């Protein structure tokens, strides 16, 4: 086990006009579960592959346990990886798949069998040890891929969207299993996903990437409560945070005809600006009891509660979503909505950077 440090790590693909990963800095503590998340093309997979030694580090460095990995081949990094398509060896049995790396490292046959059995027991794979991958279900293959990684007892686990080939139910189930397994083994883990729910539920800390650049590296709670910019605010949370461009008027916000008061710290932060982008999460809009009038365009019933989609009567080209109790509102009706001043996020209208606390 070891800590992992990305130090200005950069990767440039031949012929690309900008780096796939641009001066990435991450300090991952020993035993930590870190999730890299971002839309496709954000460089999250590339960042992981740089750690695994499958992509060149063109500038900066990556250190594992303090050792610089620039120029060190994958096989000497003591890393195990779980691939999106699992990459199981089709001609080998489950046991051989899991034992292959031990064999490559010259571990004796008895020791190999003992460790494979141990890992198989942990993952409920014992009855499958003699089977070939083509005779396994998707979930079983996924577990074999996990088993192949843990049997090595590596310093770091790299996981590249390991759940994306599973169906929705199995994905949720496996998600908790992987997280629990990682906590139990205590191996430093870097996990790549495009699914922000996976990121939020699994990671000790989450790194949000966009266009090869790190946007924010923080705990799930902090990402949700204090996104550093509009991109993170919009990416984390589902449905996404509402964003409204509003006027600033004497230390308060003017939304349509309504004035939303700001706290002292917020007022200081917006001083000198005439407009800001206001961010409010759907659950922080109170439906049915506010001054602003919302025309309801669509109601999504989720069972436990519902999401109300609509636009402000005063500003028809806005679009808002709010969480409400179930069955209370109907399409076409006009309802009042209110803001909780303590739950507002303010962003610079041009740069999108967070303003104030």
């Amino acid at each position, binding site marked *: 086990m070891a800590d992992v440090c990305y130090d200005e790590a950069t990767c440039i693909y031949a012929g690309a006009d900008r780096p796939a990963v641009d001066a990435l800095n991450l300090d991952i503590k020993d035993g930590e579960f870190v999730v890299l998340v971002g839309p496709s093309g954000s460089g999250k997979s590339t960042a992981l592959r740089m750690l695994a*030694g499958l992509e060149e580090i063109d500038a900066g460095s990556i250190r594992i346990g303090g050792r610089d990995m620039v120029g060190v081949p994958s*096989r000497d990094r003591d890393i195990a*990886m779980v691939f999106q*398509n699992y990459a199981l060896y089709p001609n080998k049995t489950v046991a051989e798949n899991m034992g*292959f790396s031990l064999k490559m490292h010259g571990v004796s046959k008895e020791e190999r069998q003992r460790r494979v059995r141990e890992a198989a027991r942990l993952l409920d794979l014992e009855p499958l040890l003699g089977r070939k991958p083509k005779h396994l279900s998707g979930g079983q293959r996924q577990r074999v891929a996990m088993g192949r990684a843990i049997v090595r007892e590596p310093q770091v686990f790299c996981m590249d969207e390991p759940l994306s080939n599973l169906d929705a139910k199995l994905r949720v189930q496996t998600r908790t299993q992987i997280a629990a397994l990682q906590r139990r083994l205590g191996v430093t883990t870097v996990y790549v996903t495009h699914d922000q729910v996976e990121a939020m539920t699994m990671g000790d800390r989450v790194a949000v990437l966009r266009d090869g650049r790190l946007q924010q590296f923080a705990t799930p709670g902090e990402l949700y409560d204090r996104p550093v910019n509009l991109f993170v605010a919009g990416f984390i949370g589902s449905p996404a945070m509402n964003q409204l461009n509003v006027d600033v008027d004497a230390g308060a916000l003017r939304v349509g005809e309504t004035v939303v008061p700001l706290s002292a710290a917020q007022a200081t932060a917006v001083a000198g600006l005439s407009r800001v982008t206001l961010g409010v999460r759907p659950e922080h809009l109170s439906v049915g009891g506010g001054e602003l009038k919302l025309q309801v365009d669509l109601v999504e019933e989720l069972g436990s509660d519902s999401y109300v989609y609509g636009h402000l009567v005063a500003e028809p080209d806005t679009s808002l979503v709010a969480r409400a109790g179930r069955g209370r509102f109907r399409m076409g009706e006009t309802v009042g909505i209110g803001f909780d001043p303590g739950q507002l996020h303010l962003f610079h209208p041009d740069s999108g950077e967070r303003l104030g606390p």
Partner: protein
Amino acid sequence: MMAATDTLAAPPRAATRPTPAIRRRRRPGIGNVVWGVVAWLVGILFFFPVLWMVLSSFKTEAAAYTNVPQFVFSPTLAEYRHVFSSGVGSYFLNSAIATVVSVVAVLLLGTPAAFALSLRPIKKTSDALFFFLSTKMLPIVAAIIPLFVAAEAVHMLDNVWTLVILYTAMNLPIAVWMMRSFLLEVPSELLEAAEMDGARLWRSLREVILPVVSPGLAATALICAIFAWNEFFFAVNITAARAATVPVFLVGFISSQGLYWAQLAAAATIATLPVVLAGWVAQRQLVRGLSFGAIK
């Protein structure tokens, strides 16, 4: 699939009649019958010459010549005996050496090339591939004189190893293209997984990649073997008594005294057998190899 849909769509049977456990097969329509007949005709048309060759090989020379062809005759092995006594052994040996050694050489040289051109591509990969293919664009006739002169200069005329070299060169482009298409089907993660597991390149190739592409390897080997075994032009031009191969031997039966049908048929049947056998042995691998992408 169609039959199942039709059964589902069919009106329910009378309640008194028990539902048969086995679904009635759909009766073939008139269109299907026509296509079936056409398919059989085409099949027979293709297979007939081969059948005729095999039949003729069991006839006497006189019976093979009858103007109304005989389908019923008393079979004899006389012509086979005659072929074997005419020294076919050395021709077979030459063909076998030229084929086996050239196929092994092609696989040894072509597989790494195909590997590099598929899993480790570089900027000039497509140029290299085109170059391989372009060597097949020159008619062999255009190359035979320089080849003859070159072989003569190094005293390798009528030498089976010259054929080995030529057949290797002849089949290499095809093998590289074929092997490349099989290797392209291999997910690159497989190689990466092996590397992360601590395997060096050679070990990953041997333990992970080659078992996956072995059907492709078999298909490539078989195609190259057929081409080498059947090759006639080089063999007839640069070999004489010592290094001549089976196709050259066959042509020997078309002599100035006329055609010996039965003998030629017997010899041709013998010449065909190894390829047919190889194809039969490799059949399963071959089908898997040729439909590699479809069943991944």
